[in-house]
């Protein structure tokens, strides 16, 4: 089979969608391309359908919260799209940075239908809104849950261990399921 020559994803993307690419980093042989959030659909589309790139598999969407710090240009959140190319056997991370007051990025479910639940989870756990998502509901937490547990300012709760000497004291404060 005649496989077209593999292209360098960063330079190919720069020549095709010049203004969308903000930064390119490499760490431990992993390439990260930072892109403009509003252009994410076009970027993933280009990466999937361009000859020599063919990043045809979305492995994961991983959101990260930098609170109390900020990154890049004062943004609090990062969302990484982990792509994989079956043809060229290589991975690529496309990353967008989002501001705290409006963590919104267009959905990529039209490019990769498998992103549906991944985006739902990012919304549920990190509070990132995906514009145009067909079904943006919570997926892991109950639907009436307050807050987004994976944010860094969301406290990690715990329960005191029950022993015979403190069982009554704990039971007094314990939120049991209501009738």
């Amino acid at each position: 089979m005649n496989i077209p020559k593999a292209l360098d994803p960063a330079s190919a993307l720069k020549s095709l969608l010049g203004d969308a690419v903000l930064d390119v980093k490499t760490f431990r042989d992993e390439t990260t391309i930072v892109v403009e959030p509003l252009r994410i659909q076009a970027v993933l589309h280009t990466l999937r359908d361009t000859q020599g790139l063919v990043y045809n598999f979305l492995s994961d969407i991983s959101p990260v919260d930098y609170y109390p710090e900020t990154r890049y240009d004062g943004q609090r959140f990062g969302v990484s799209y982990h792509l994989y190319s079956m043809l060229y056997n290589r991975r690529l991370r496309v990353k967008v940075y989002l501001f705290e007051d409006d963590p919104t990025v267009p959905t990529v479910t039209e490019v990769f239908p498998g992103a549906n639940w991944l985006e739902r989870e990012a919304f549920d756990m990190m509070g990132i809104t995906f514009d145009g998502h067909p079904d943006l509901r919570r997926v892991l937490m109950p639907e009436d849950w307050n807050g987004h547990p994976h944010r860094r300012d969301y406290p990690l709760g715990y329960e005191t261990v029950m022993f015979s000497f403190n069982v009554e004291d704990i039971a007094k404060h314990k939120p049991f399921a209501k009738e």
Partner: protein
Amino acid sequence: MVMELSRPSADGMAEWQGDLDALRGLVSDRAITGETMLLNLGPHHPSTHGVLRLLLELDGEEIVTCLPDVGFLHTGIEKNIEAKQYEKGVTLTDRMDYLAPMSNNAVFCMAVEKLGGIDVPERAQVIRIICLELTRLNSHLVWLGTHALDLGAMSVFLYAFREREVILDMFEMLSGQRMMTSYMRPGGVWRDLPPDFLPALEKFLGYFPQKVDEYELLLTNNPIWRDRTQGIGVVEPEDALAWGLTGPCLRASGINWDIRKAEPYMSYENYEFNVPLGEHGDVYDRYIIRMHEMRESTRILKQAIKRLGAAKGSFRSDNRKFVPPPRAELGRSMEAVIHHFKLWTEGFSLPDEEVYMAIESPRGEIGCYLHGTGGPKPRRVRFKTPSFMHISALGKMSQGHMIADLVAIVGSIDCVLGDSDR
């Protein structure tokens, strides 16, 4: 979405108690008018393999819509690891996919190793491969037993669990635990193989291939089994890629992607094994692939035992900045005491960078996204788990099938809800 359970009303008929308006757009309009029936399957149903809840819209026995609902087993593992030092996170990873604890241990440790640039000696790599392949057998045996049980073949369940018991005993030899092994550590494994482990493994490998033949004798050409599985839950290759299916489910559709071959970790490139591929992408092909994978795992295990004798290095790295010194050194070396103290109080620090590590778990691609802080605790740990992706595709896979076939499809995607909900 408000989806309350239906409770029997006064006349004994089940009545939908939830808010129908909340379901608008998720189910067809015929369900709103009452033309089709809404039915809950799970979360406490034996054939949902854990606490998976499916909201079904049925037209007679045919499935119009299937809405999977997960999260009942969410335990906040990712959040908890953020509050722990890297080495202590390993213990929590077992609890995700409780049928393949070693895969979870391995992917987390390998992400830590990648972020920190920690080396893994050759011997530790071979030991890890033994663990990873044993865990694959373990997981596939549980899958085979429960999947066959769902479709009415009871004896396979008993046979599969008989062999699984031996593997769990071996895990107990290694780690002291049968299921929650926590055996791996960044830089290697917790301790060397105990002396009775290899004889036990060799004995097991001696008879296991015949046992796989035995299972196949019961099922592969069984007309009832074929009727229940062939042509059911067909996934086209393009769809499998688009929906993010991995592992045996992807390979059943004919796409040759096994991370052990594509991006070899732990020196998988030195082992000879085949990647079985399916043609039709149905439940039967997924079954055949997992049966073949068990045989291939046995082959890898046999090669690993041979390699173990010649493998250089210890069962863990000598990099004292990440791996504690052996106990015996503490009495002799001041430096060892310092390293020991630093590692057990503060822990090791990893750079403020991000990595993504993916390995082939029995179910598919399990990925670990790790973002350090520059300190001893991670900023973010995220696991991309195969069960989550497979359940998300369940709705599309089961559309138009009979409700009895849904049980076959749920079994064939081999979902573990701990893996999906984390």
